[in-house]
């Protein structure tokens, strides 16, 4: 029986292959949409995992999250320096770390912060953290090792090649991989950023850094108290972790006001996922429409093929073949081609999502988990069931002609 199917497929292999490929592409389309959307969602959610609450000056919440969690460069307004001091004293706060952006080194963002964030991001994998202002810790994807030195560039001026000549950092440690854009970041003490931009405590909070370029005293020890000082310079964002979940909600509420805005990156992402979900729905509808079209085309081809062979099939019955076996054979042949197409499509869709994700990962640092979920099984089973059901039609047609009619010719 199987040999007959195989003999038949061998005879008509170019057609069978073409049909299987078409089915594979239609399946892959749907699979890629599903996997890629999931990868974007889970990747961004996991990248934001270390950031429970972000506090910034009142402005776009979305921009605040994009800049702090995803290190997307954008000018953010500064918050009064006192906010940090207040947070440091708040009993609900487990840890809070300021972050200051603006500099870069060969395209890797240089971010000023404190040791709290290093621990919050998962700690040091190799080397050690900040001890002096000239120390730096690099993300897992930054191609530098402890002992390397560099001069950062002011990001907005990088094109003009303005280097903080007086500023030299020495890499002391490498962060554990986080699967987030922070893997591409270089972390330095925020005091060092203030010093090299001439933003010492107490004066010129929002001044134009270029005109106040200061020299960095690389050997000065890091002083955690300086960050929490009431007259500390302003920062664009502070990352906060509450002791409990209720604390996190309370802090979010407390720091939403005239002076600052507090937001869970998760809530911004959740809003984004709503939009992403809508996009996925549209793309899925397109994919399903494509699949339906392909199913129709395949059905047509199968019907033509079977109609052509109806006489042969009727004759086989006349000569003693069993009707049920013939039905099974025609069904099996069509279903086999369709199942092969669906299986190939799953692989193809996975591969496409992997390739797309690898590109996004390389560009953003956000790890993209391309993974199947239990719900995909339903999708695949649905496709297979649809294919199996469609294959019934040619099988039933093959059945239709009576053996007498088939022999009459």
């Amino acid at each position, binding site marked *: *029986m199987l*040999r*007959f199917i195989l*003999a*038949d497929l*061998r*005879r008509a292999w170019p057609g069978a292959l073409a049909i299987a490929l078409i089915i594979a592409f239609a399946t892959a389309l749907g699979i890629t949409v599903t996997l890629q959307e999931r990868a974007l969602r889970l990747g961004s959610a996991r990248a934001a995992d270390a950031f429970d609450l972000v506090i910034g000056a009142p402005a776009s919440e979305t921009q605040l999250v994009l800049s702090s969690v995803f290190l997307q460069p954008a000018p953010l307004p500064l918050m009064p320096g006192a906010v940090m001091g207040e947070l440091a004293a708040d009993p609900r706060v487990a840890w809070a770390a300021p972050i200051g952006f603006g500099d870069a080194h060969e395209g890797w963002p240089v971010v000023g912060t404190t040791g709290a964030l290093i621990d919050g991001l998962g700690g040091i994998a190799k080397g050690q953290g900040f001890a002096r202002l000239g120390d730096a810790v690099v993300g897992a994807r930054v191609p530098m090792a402890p002992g390397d030195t560099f001069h950062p560039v002011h990001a907005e001026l990088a094109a003009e090649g303005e280097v903080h000549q007086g500023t030299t950092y020495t890499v002391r440690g490498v962060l554990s991989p986080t699967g987030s854009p922070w893997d591409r970041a270089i972390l330095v003490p925020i005091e060092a950023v203030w010093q090299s931009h001439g933003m010492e405590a107490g004066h010129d909070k929002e001044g134009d850094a270029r005109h106040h370029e200061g020299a960095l005293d690389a050997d000065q020890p890091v002083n955690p108290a300086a960050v929490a000082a009431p007259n500390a310079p302003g920062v664009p964002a502070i990352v906060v972790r509450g002791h409990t979940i209720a604390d996190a909600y309370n802090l979010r509420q407390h720091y939403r006001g005239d002076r600052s805005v507090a937001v869970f990156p998760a809530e911004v992402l959740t809003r984004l996922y709503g939009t992403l979900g809508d996009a996925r729905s549209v793309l899925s509808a397109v994919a399903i429409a494509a699949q339906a079209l392909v199913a129709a085309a395949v059905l047509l081809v199968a019907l033509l093929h079977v109609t052509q062979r109806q006489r*042969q099939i009727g*004759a*086989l*019955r*006349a*000569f*003693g*073949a*069993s*009707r*049920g*076996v*013939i039905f099974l*054979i025609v069904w099996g042949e069509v279903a086999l081609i369709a199942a092969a197409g669906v299986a190939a499509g799953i692989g193809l869709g996975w591969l496409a999502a992997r390739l797309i994700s690898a590109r996004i990962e390389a560009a953003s640092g956000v790890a993209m988990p391309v993974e199947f979920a239990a719900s995909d099984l339903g999708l695949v089973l649905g496709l297979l069931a649809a294919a199996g059901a469609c294959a019934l039609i040619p099988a039933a047609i093959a059945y239709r002609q*009576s*053996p*007498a009619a088939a*022999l*009459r*010719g």
Partner: protein
Amino acid sequence: MARLAIRNLVARFPGLDQPALDVPAFDLDAGARIALRGPSGSGKTTFLNMLTGLARVPEGHVTWDGIDLATLGEGARDRWRAANVGLVMQDFHLFPGLSALENVLLPRRLRWRGAEKGAREEALGLLRRTGVPRPDQPVETLSRGQSQRVAVARALLGRPAILVADEPTASLDAEAGAAVGALLTDLARETGATLVVATHDPELIERIGRVAHLTAGRLAA
């Protein structure tokens, strides 16, 4: 051995005033051989369809060894035919892409229980007996005479008790026709099968020996 008894068989087709077939009584002993002769459209094929269960018996009785085909449903007739009847048609109805041997075996293989043990050896023996030189030759490369020999081998596989042929030599040249006709009659004699052949071929009729005339659906011995 198969013995035939037909009673009050009437078959009509829509649009025809006269019945296409009207056979009040017709009997054949087991192992008998008979040629069915009649002009085109006289009802030969219709008659054979009734004999072999290819078509439903609309009225009357067609009884082979006590089994009345009129009482069998479509599936039961298919099973009965598969077990008892070997068929040879004017067109060979061979499956391209398969070898001569595979074609002989195909109807048997396409059953739930598959082909019997030894079917392959039997098929090879039949192909040798019918003079098909290369059993693994693809059928689309066979001559017409060879194709009909393969069809005869297929009909004889499993030693059916009933052998029915519908104008088996009509599409062959005289020489090939003579060879196929000889095979059919010889093999029917060898296996003791009851042989019914619809044909115009005088040589084949002579070879079979006994003839019944069919005119406008009515039989005359």
